[in-house]
């Protein structure tokens, strides 16, 4: 009997080729997106599984105190102070290891370059089962050991057989390569979008370069600063959570509890995933899931709608089968078998498409996503079956509910059967795609505006130098100042350079230090948070920041310059937002105001406001308005070089030769400010691209569906159209008639979609401080666009039908 079902299903598909193609393609696209997104999320959630014992490895996650006002709630990172405590107190833990990464110059035979080096407790090599080409798990036990991946060894030394090679780190300490490991697979948290882990060194030697304390610090929480714990297989994360909570309560000071409100054990597989959760502010996998669900919904509705319309054409068959004694269940089965068949064909096409696009995607994104048939087969089969059932149930129910006599008479086809439901489905489909289009338009417009607004800073005319004075003693302020002056003079001598300034932040950066400040000395209750920005006086000229009142800072006035652990009184310039925060009404009133740092454990510092400048936004790319104070800081490590517009091509070489003169031992690192902007803006561009891609697909499916359905309805109304023509209706009148039939659902769909889009776009706009004001206009445009597109789609059929000779229309039946 099922053979008979399949046979008739296939013959029906063949008979209605257009509908079959539309049905299958629509569903295939929907399934492709759905399966792809599911695979991608699955991939991101299944990192690091190739490490032996990965199920027993955990990392510590820190949850930040919400009062800290940080851009993220939690981070896969923990204070380095925990590891020694865990080691001492938790005898059941097999191993605990920390990593801290640092960017240092690596000098090999006189050539130096910056490399990211992961300093780790030697036991890290016991926790992770790296594959050793040379050397073994003991490789990090010497304090001057380096473990290098194969790719890095070839890049640095020209050979994978690099054991014994000596390098100079930070131009001061010799390290020797003791082991070469195979490259860590890309689907590991060691390789993130921010960089690959390729060089390991013992964490103790970090003391040679920084003030790292081997017993750990409490506030060194940052991405990449991870603490790993390996448990024996009889203990689980619940146990570890309880132990960590107890350690947190007993060892963490109240001050540090103010930063981190709790710590948790996190299984290793989540280490990568929590990267996703930290970046961007929006959970990308959620965006992905929602979008892919919308697409599959459209595709299913599309199929359901077409199948319902089409199955009505088969009511005679149902009538015959019923008179032959078929029960409703048997008929339901038959039609469900058909829709499952279609869904299976669509799935096969989807898998074929995925086979083509996954390699491309991997190439473009540096991922190693794989389609593992054996593992995913049950899920794929389930999805196919579910899609078949979900899409088939309504059409089957509709077609089999008719009594045999009505079915034979084809009443269903002629009557106004279930137009409400059908219209609802068209409408739903349409509203989803309109919603997506509207979202794309708003996101795009806002992104453009954000780009435009950020012209506040002349980003096309600034080159940023990194790592200035990186090898100098940070306490020797005079030497630092000397070097900065030297660099500034030399750079100013380059013909196309206009101005040079140094600072410890440049525009668009995402991290920033904050001071808690009070207007009353010693008051720790009435405080405001103001971001601090260390600069040299010419910073205002380089970035065209106008002074509103008071004077500029001057490096020659002693209280204008900051001396670490020496300065008690520091002259500063506030920005306009800081005035608002402090409740000072005019820039003039701010001059000579005294402010006090509330930071514990440092000398009480007094700030004197000597000027007010206008700088509405500085951090990030969303134009966030924040309060700032500027002070002169000779330890600034970033240089901003303003050059003549259009001279950017040659300028880098000139800067490079200056750098070589002043810092001969260190490689120069730098980039154009526009590059920094684009890097930070990437997420928003990415979001827009994703949205655009999804909405295009949604629109295509919806239009194809509308096209198919209107073809069908037009065919159904052929006779009516013939009659109308005989009675004297013009082609245009008839086209209008058919277009109107579709306009009702389309119109309400557009209205409701625009309402949702309005709320959604407001949500997005909240990321930005300067928002587009015409978002409603854009939404309306998107709505009009989809209505017109819908009309054109339907109109094509209507026009064709309307132009037909009436007698052909009448003879139809």
């Amino acid at each position, binding site marked *: 009997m099922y053979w008979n079902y399949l046979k008739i299903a296939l013959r029906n598909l063949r008979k209605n080729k257009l509908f079959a193609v539309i049905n299958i393609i629509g569903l295939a696209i929907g399934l492709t997106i759905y399966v792809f997104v599911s695979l991608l999320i699955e991939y991101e959630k299944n990192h690091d599984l190739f490490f032996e014992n990965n199920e027993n490895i955990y990392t510590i996650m820190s949850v930040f105190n919400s009062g800290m006002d940080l851009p993220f709630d939690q981070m896969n990172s923990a204070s380095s102070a925990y590891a020694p405590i865990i080691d001492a107190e938790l005898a059941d833990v097999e191993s605990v290891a920390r990593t801290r990464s640092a960017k240092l110059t690596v000098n090999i035979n006189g050539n130096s370059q910056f490399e990211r080096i992961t300093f780790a407790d030697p036991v890290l090599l016991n926790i992770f089962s790296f594959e050793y080409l040379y050397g073994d798990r003991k490789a990090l036990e010497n304090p001057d050991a380096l473990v290098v991946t194969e790719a890095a060894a070839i890049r640095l030394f020209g050979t994978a057989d690099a054991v014994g090679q000596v390098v100079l780190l930070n131009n001061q300490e010799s390290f020797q390569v003791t082991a070469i490991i195979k490259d860590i697979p890309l689907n590991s948290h060691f390789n993130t979008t921010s960089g690959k882990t390729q060089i390991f060194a013992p964490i103790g030697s970090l003391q040679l370069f920084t003030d790292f304390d081997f017993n750990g610090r409490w506030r060194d929480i940052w991405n990449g600063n991870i603490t790993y714990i390996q448990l024996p297989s009889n203990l689980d994360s619940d146990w570890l959570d309880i132990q960590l909570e107890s350690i947190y309560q007993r060892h963490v000071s109240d001050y540090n509890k103010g930063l981190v409100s709790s710590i948790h054990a996190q299984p290793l597989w989540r280490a990568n995933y929590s990267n996703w959760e930290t970046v961007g502010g929006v959970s990308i996998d959620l965006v992905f899931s929602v979008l892919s669900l919308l697409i599959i919904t459209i595709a299913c509705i599309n199929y359901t709608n077409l199948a319902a319309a089409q199955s009505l054409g088969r009511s005679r068959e149902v009538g*015959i089968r019923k008179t032959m004694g078929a*029960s409703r269940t048997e008929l339901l089965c038959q039609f469900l078998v058909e829709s499952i068949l279609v869904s299976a064909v669509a799935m096969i096409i989807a898998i074929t498409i995925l086979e083509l696009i996954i390699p491309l995607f991997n190439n473009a994104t540096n991922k190693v996503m794989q389609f593992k048939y054996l593992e995913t087969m049950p899920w794929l089969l389930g999805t196919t079956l579910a899609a078949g059932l979900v899409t088939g149930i309504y059409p089957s129910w509709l077609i089999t509910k008719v009594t045999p006599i009505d079915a034979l008479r084809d009443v269903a086809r002629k009557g106004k059967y279930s137009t409400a439901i059908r219209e609802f489905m068209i409408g739903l489909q349409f509203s989803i795609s309109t919603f997506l289009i509207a979202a794309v338009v708003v996101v795009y417009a806002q992104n453009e505006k954000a780009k435009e607004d950020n012209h506040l800073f002349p980003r096309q005319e600034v080159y940023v130098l990194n790592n200035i004075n990186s090898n100098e003693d940070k306490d020797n302020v005079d030497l630092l100042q000397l070097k900065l002056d030297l660099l500034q003079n030399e750079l100013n001598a380059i013909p196309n350079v206009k101005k040079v300034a140094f600072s410890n932040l440049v525009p668009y950066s995402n991290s920033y230090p904050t001071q808690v400040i009070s207007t009353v000395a010693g008051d720790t209750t009435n405080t405001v948070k103001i971001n601090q920005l260390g600069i040299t006086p010419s910073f205002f000229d380089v970035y065209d920041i106008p002074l509103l009142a008071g004077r500029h800072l001057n490096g020659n006035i002693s209280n204008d310059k900051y001396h670490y652990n020496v300065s008690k009184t520091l002259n500063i310039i506030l920005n306009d937002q800081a005035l608002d925060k402090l409740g000072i009404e005019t820039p003039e009133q701010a001059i000579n105001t005294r402010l006090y740092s509330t930071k514990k454990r440092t000398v009480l510092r007094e700030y004197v406001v000597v000027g007010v400048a206008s700088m509405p936004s500085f951090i990030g790319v969303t134009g966030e308005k924040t309060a700032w104070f500027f002070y002169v800081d000779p330890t600034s490590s970033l240089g901003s070089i303003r050059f003549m517009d259009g001279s950017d091509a040659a300028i880098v070489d000139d800067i490079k030769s200056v750098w070589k003169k002043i810092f001969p031992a260190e490689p120069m690192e730098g980039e154009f400010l526009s590059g920094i902007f684009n890097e930070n803006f990437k997420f928003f561009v990415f979001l827009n691209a994703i949205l655009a891609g999804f909405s295009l697909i949604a629109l295509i499916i919806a239009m194809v569906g509308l096209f198919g359905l209107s073809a069908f309805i037009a065919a159904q109304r052929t006779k009516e159209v013939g009659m109308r023509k005989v009675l004297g209706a013009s082609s245009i009148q008839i086209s209008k008639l058919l277009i109107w039939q579709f306009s009702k659902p389309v119109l309400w769909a557009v209205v409701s979609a625009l309402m949702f889009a309005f709320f959604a776009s407001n949500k997005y706009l909240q990321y930005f401080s300067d928002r587009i004001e015409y978002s409603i206009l854009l939404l309306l445009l998107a709505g009009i666009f989809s209505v017109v597109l819908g009309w054109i789609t339907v109109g094509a059929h209507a026009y064709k039908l309307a132009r037909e000779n009436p007698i052909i229309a009448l003879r139809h039946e």
Partner: protein
Amino acid sequence: MLKLHNLSKVYRTEEVETVALNGVDIEIQRGDFVAMMGPSGCGKSTLLNIIGMLDNPTGGDYFFFDENIANYSESKLSELRKKNIGFIFQSFNLIDELNVQENIELALLYHKIPSGERKRRVAEVMDRMGIAHRAKHMPGQLSGGQQQRVAVARAVVGDQPLILADEPTGNLDSAHGQEVMELLQSLNAEGTTIVMVTHSPSHADYAKRTINLLDGHLVTDNIRAA
């Protein structure tokens, strides 16, 4: 075999009430060959559909083998229909996507008969109807007469005791019409009960009994002397 008592059927729309059958009493015995005649709209097709359990009466009783089925649900009727009734329609009602053999087999498909047995019975009935050489043809490739033979084959392959034919010759020329009538007559001779609606007096002559309907009433009920 079946007995209709005071059977009526009324079609109601919002404003109009149409009486299709009004107090019809008929009893049909096993082995009967009944022709139902009457002008268009007299209710004969409605009556046939009710007898065929494709439609429910709005009033009266319908005893099928002494069982009053007038208010049976569709699923119960479907079971009874499947066991007892074969259908022949004026417009043949073959499924265009199935070939001759498959169309005939359809009548056995819902009877839980093993595939081999089905094939055997289909082959046998095709031989009997003289359409074996057309087994793999699609309905669209056959003439009207051939299509109706397929329809007759489909009606008889299930060996149901009762065959209902709704103007079986309506779409056929006279030669083919006669052929189909002869087929029906021989089936009746083998013991199958047949109820047929027809417009043609000459075709009605093949039947043993003629019922005339007018405006939903039974007018005459003549049993022809053998």
